[in-house]
């Protein structure tokens, strides 16, 4: 499904894995807790939101904790992963300017790091389930598909952002604000059936919101999402990937001069 140049990256998988891991190592270098932070970051975010929102009783659902955690986890990873992706080309200027290398790998590496974070945080999610007496239904086997869509989305966004960022540095603060807004316009703190109006309209054009909603259905509610939801979101994230990759592809030779 993916265009051919991306497939050739399969040969580079050990390089990509190594760099993805080093990225994470770099991030937590010098901290006492190290990789544990990968688990603690979303857990703290979850705790704060859980205390506040279960106190003001926006929702009475017993499963609110897991519902919230699924949303927080994907949101947090999206924020973290695209943050890494945004700077993935500019940060490697030294490498790009001193040796002929496959430029495509850098946004992929940022996505690879996101994927490693994902493994840690899925562990956190499953660790929370017994604490809140939550037993998932069989539909949770569909989770890998949702996570796959999530990574495709992150990769597409990373190709686009990392290229744009070479030209326009304002992209970073703009993206930070956008990601901040995504916390409120995505179904993290509220349920789809609790809202209407503008929030539902935004949900239609918000792929991360759609992915969170798919994950809610299969993890929290034990539902199999209807086919049209799958198809819509799949088309959306692959559309973003192709667009992002096309922009990167057009500019990749020229950005080396400009970083």
């Amino acid at each position, binding site marked *: 499904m993916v265009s051919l140049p991306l497939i050739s990256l399969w040969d580079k998988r050990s390089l990509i894995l190594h760099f993805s891991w080093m990225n994470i190592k770099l991030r937590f*270098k010098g901290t006492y807790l190290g990789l544990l932070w990968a688990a603690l970051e979303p857990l703290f975010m979850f705790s704060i939101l859980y205390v506040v929102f279960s106190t003001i009783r926006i929702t009475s659902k017993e499963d609110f904790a897991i519902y919230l955690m699924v949303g927080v986890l994907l949101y947090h990873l999206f924020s973290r992963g695209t943050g890494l992706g945004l700077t993935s080309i500019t940060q490697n200027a030294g490498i790009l300017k001193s*040796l002929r290398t496959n430029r495509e790998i850098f946004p992929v590496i940022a996505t690879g790091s996101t994927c490693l974070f994902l493994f840690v945080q899925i562990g956190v999610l499953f660790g929370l389930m017994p604490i809140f007496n939550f037993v998932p239904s069989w539909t949770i086997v569909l989770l890998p598909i949702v996570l796959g869509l999530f990574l495709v989305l992150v990769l597409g966004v990373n190709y686009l952002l990392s290229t744009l960022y070479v030209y326009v540095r304002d992209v970073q603060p703009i993206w930070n604000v956008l990601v901040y807004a995504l916390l409120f316009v995505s179904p993290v703190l509220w349920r789809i059936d609790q809202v209407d109006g503008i929030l539902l309209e935004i949900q239609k054009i918000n792929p991360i919101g759609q992915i969170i909603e798919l994950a809610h259905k299969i993890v929290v509610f034990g539902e199999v999402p209807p086919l049209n939801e799958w198809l819509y979101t799949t088309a959306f994230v692959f559309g973003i990937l192709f667009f992002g990759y096309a922009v990167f592809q057009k500019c990749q030779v020229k950005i080396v001069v400009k970083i």
Partner: protein
Amino acid sequence: MSSKNCGEDLRLDSLAIKSQNVTNTFSLNQKGISGILGDINNNQQNQFVALDNISFTILKGETIGLMGLNGSGKTTLLRIISSIYSPDSGTVNINGNIAPLLQIGTGFNPEFNASENIVQYGMLLGFSKSKIKSEIDNIIEFAELKKFKNLQLKNYSTGMRAKLGFATALQVNPDILLVDEVLSVGDEAFREKSFQAFLEFKKNHKTVILTTHSTKMISDLCDRVILLNEGKIVKIGTPDQVIPLYKIIVQEHKNSKRD
């Protein structure tokens, strides 16, 4: 057209590098929204000519000096030879594999220590992780950095970084080595060692291109010199022929500054 700068009959297998009419321009409005739109639509404006119709031939086993004032196009030319940049027009044919362009401090991550950087760089150059790991000790030995093996590179001096880069590049065992200003920072002992390495290179019929402002180094090491000024080739010849011209250019530059 005028690619026969050596004026000799060349057999193809004795050629290391052949550059024909290479021209490279940078657009001055490189960045911003207009920059990215220009790159996507492939229309360039406000161009600045960095290299103008450069043709030369380099034979295997030659050591070539590249001279010129700052901004005369030396680094751009080296980047084109290593296919980091692609020229706007003209062709460069390379016979053999090229080590990364050696510049002080590029390509290494300052947050990592020497071993981590060697692994990362080696993998980017296409070595397997196990292969490059087995070479770490040799590289560090050659660079005389054993004591500083576990020190982050940001704590290295310029000279130490240059040594590490040089040692890593030699380990690639390239046919063509490109050295940009690196040797001027090493200490006397290391310079001696690099001289030996260059001689060894020569003996094995390998090619070196180095840029430096040191006329002594040029006359000690180089078979021929390419003198660049404002993106054009002024002269290709033996050090004895070219160094006086270089001095004239330097003097003219000084005079123009004084006026």
